[in-house]
């Protein structure tokens, strides 16, 4: 069977005609399969939603329990037949509940990666390699300038700065879903035992992680207190909050952002970041290549990101490659949001 009969791009997103199902549609559709809970992939208002139990829980926290007409949970590794196409979800290592979607029919298997990473992350299970004929990959960081250091390496930079400026507060902008909890878990791994303070926008999702058994130690909501109370504190907030008067409550704050974009100096400076932490929940240039090779796929489709570079590399390897230029993904990773 031709892969395009199983899945092909439409303005709404990747579409499977036999199952009448879209993967991560960017506008409301009758039936959606959602790879993970980031808001550019998981939107409210679909007729029915198929996703991992964790992703469904995340969507309920973000959009309220009525975010879709109906929902169906599919655990990692389980298979569901819709219209003759066998769907299964596999860990993507991106955030809690993130999945790759495999669609198989007539002996042809197509895998949609969603967003993924290969680096170790204490807050979610590791990426699973799913052999396939066509691998539909993201390419957020598909340029040779992106080689992500380990999360531990970057968090140690944060701890070194906190030790150097004990009278100042360190405010880390980190996306509310995934990045914030990963930074907390890495801080604990590196021996930070103080309470971690969080902006209100991070509270619910952090609690959801804790309810799913992720150990983040003592996490406290930032409350009204004299400035000196936060001397030496590490505080997490959404990146957008760094530019608001909210940060004025902290003593001489050091502004930091945890994002893969922080690898590029100009990006960090555009946001006025003093302590850039290159912590990313996406595969870097080397891991994108490794993953493509690992899947054994002969054909690579690229959903969003730096598609031209990755397509060029695929062609150098003798792989068929196609940039889909899907619009609407990556908004959360753009400089303004700085989530990646």
């Amino acid at each position, binding site marked *: 069977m031709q892969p395009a009969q199983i899945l092909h791009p439409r303005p709404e997103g990747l579409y499977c005609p036999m199952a009448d199902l879209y993967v991560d549609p960017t506008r409301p559709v009758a039936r959606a399969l959602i790879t993970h809970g980031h808001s550019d992939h998981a939107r409210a208002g679909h007729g029915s939603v198929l996703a991992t139990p964790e992703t469904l829980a995340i969507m309920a926290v973000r959009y309220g329990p009525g975010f879709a007409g109906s929902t169906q949970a599919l655990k990692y590794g389980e298979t569901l037949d819709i219209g003759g196409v066998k769907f299964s979800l596999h860990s993507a290592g991106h955030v809690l509940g993130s999945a790759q979607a495999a669609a198989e029919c007539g002996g042809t298997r197509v895998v949609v990666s969603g967003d993924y990473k290969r680096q170790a992350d204490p807050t979610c299970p590791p990426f699973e390699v799913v052999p396939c004929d066509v691998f539909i990959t993201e390419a957020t960081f598909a*340029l040779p300038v992106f*080689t992500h250091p380990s999360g531990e390496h970057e968090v140690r930079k944060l701890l070194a700065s906190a030790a150097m400026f004990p009278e100042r507060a360190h405010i880390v902008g980190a996306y509310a879903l995934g990045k914030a909890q990963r930074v907390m878990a890495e801080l604990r791994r590196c021996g930070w035992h103080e309470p971690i303070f969080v902006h209100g926008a991070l509270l619910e999702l952090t609690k959801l992680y804790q309810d799913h058994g992720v150990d983040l130690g003592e996490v406290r909501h930032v409350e009204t207190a004299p400035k000196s109370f936060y001397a030496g504190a590490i505080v997490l907030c959404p990146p957008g909050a760094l530019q608001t008067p909210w940060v004025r409550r902290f003593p001489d704050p050091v502004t930091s952002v945890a994002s893969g974009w922080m690898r*590029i100096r*100009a990006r960090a*400076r555009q946001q006025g970041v003093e302590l850039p932490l290159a912590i990313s929940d996406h595969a870097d240039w080397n891991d994108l290549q490794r993953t493509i090779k690992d899947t054994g796929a002969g054909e690579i489709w690229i959903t969003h990101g730096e598609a031209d*570079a990755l397509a*060029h590399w695929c062609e150098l390897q003798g792989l068929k490659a196609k940039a889909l*230029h899907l619009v609407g993904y990556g908004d959360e990773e*753009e400089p303004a949001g700085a989530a990646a």
Partner: protein
Amino acid sequence: MNRFAALLDRLAYEPRRLGKLALLEAYFRETPDPDRGWALAAMTGALTFKNAKAGLIRNLAAERTDPVLFGLSYDFVGDLAETVALMWPADETRANAQLTITDVVDGLSTTPKEELSARVADWLDRLDENGRWALLKLITGALRIGVSARLARTALARLGGKETDEIEDVWHTDAPPYAHLFAWLESRGEAPSVATTVRFYPPMLSHPIEPEEFVPLNPAEFVAEWKWDGIRVQAAAGKDADGKRVARLYSRTGEDLSGAFPDLVRGFDFDAVLDGELLIKRGGGVQDFNTLQQRLNRKSVNAKMMAEFPAFIRVYDLLALGDDDLRALPFIERRAKLESFVNAHPLAPIDLSSTIKFDTWDELSAARADPSHGGAGIDAEAVEGVMIKRRDAPYLAGRPKGYWFKWKRDPMVIDAVLMYAQRGSGKRSSFYSDYTFGVWTEAGELTPVGKAYFGFTDEELIELDRFVRNNTTNRFGPVREVTHTKTKGLVLEVAFEGLQRSTRHKSGVAMRFPRISRIRWDKRPSDADTLEALEKFLARTSTAKV
């Protein structure tokens, strides 16, 4: 190199001026000669290497990396040095070798051209990512760490317990690596001696002013002059310490321009330092900036160029005369001396910037709106507004508040449609920040009429960038074509300072200094202006060819 690289890295992320000063001062205090002197030279733009240029880095990148991937990466990062530093296939086993900035500067200056490329590649292999970045920044010269030459000199002043202006005064007496300067600052050496003339004085700059700000100001306390659209220069001539006659032409930043204007400097028959505007005069009238630009663009000056673009200086201030530094005098006293000075030197390539007669701000406003009838006459084309100076203003370095104001002419404005966008560089890297816009022709098609890359806020840039990404219809390398039909597309209000006929542009016109003044999310592309409407502005500006 590690120490210098660490300094650059920390400066690049330190937003606070005081924080930057503290980092610089600590570096100058802790780093030995000549390393700190070379670092100072690098940060004040005083280093150039004959053979080590950006081209060398490009060639190295081409040898070690895939050209397509390099091109895409460079386009994304927007900075050559950083791109190569990040994607250089490094040999980690050799990283962090000891290499000082002096080793690097010596190597870049003395290595024969044919061996230089291998030398730089060897250094890149031995440095870590941050070190590679600093090395490549040193070669390209554009550090982009938010440190101006003035800030570096302020840090020196703090090191030596001096005033910044004292450093400015002696700056031109020493050269990299500034051993005498550091010796003086650390009280180990004599103060450098400076002649009153043949030296550069940091210029006094003005603040922009808006009409409503005139209300509390008393017109009787001010003098107004035309603001000329040339380049700000200082003409300095006199005898040096050995009694030899010297003449120099300095740019606003103290760069020596004498080599590019030998015809001017030859005529400096005075012992004085003058502040003024370098302009081109032809057929009795001062030409606009476009004409001056044609001479500035040429690397070498020849007799033909000098005859075709005769330069002179329209002077508006006298900073030193003979042995006297006049800067502390009130403006009107300096002005009186300047007038007699110009009369006494009829052969020098200078003339006097005339004042504008006015008793009320309304009268000045009328002159500004119509310079040719307001007193500028035949030179009106080269007027870009008016300068307003307090009668009692001393001449102060920098941009002191409350003394000098510039009131530019109102820009011309049209509504145009966004057609193409290109990624920017530097601070704007990876944003689509360079916009090509068009207006409607009689045939009902859009024709590009200009390109603008500023005028918008950082928030608007994010919105524009998102619009480009979500409305791309075609890609040409770093350029994206954006939806621009009658009903779908984005209207931009574009402000500009002048319009000329141009044979080089398809539309037949070229704008001067275009920028985005507003984003018209509320308008449809069909509401944008026509080429015919744009051409009406030709009458308002000069007839010079572009």
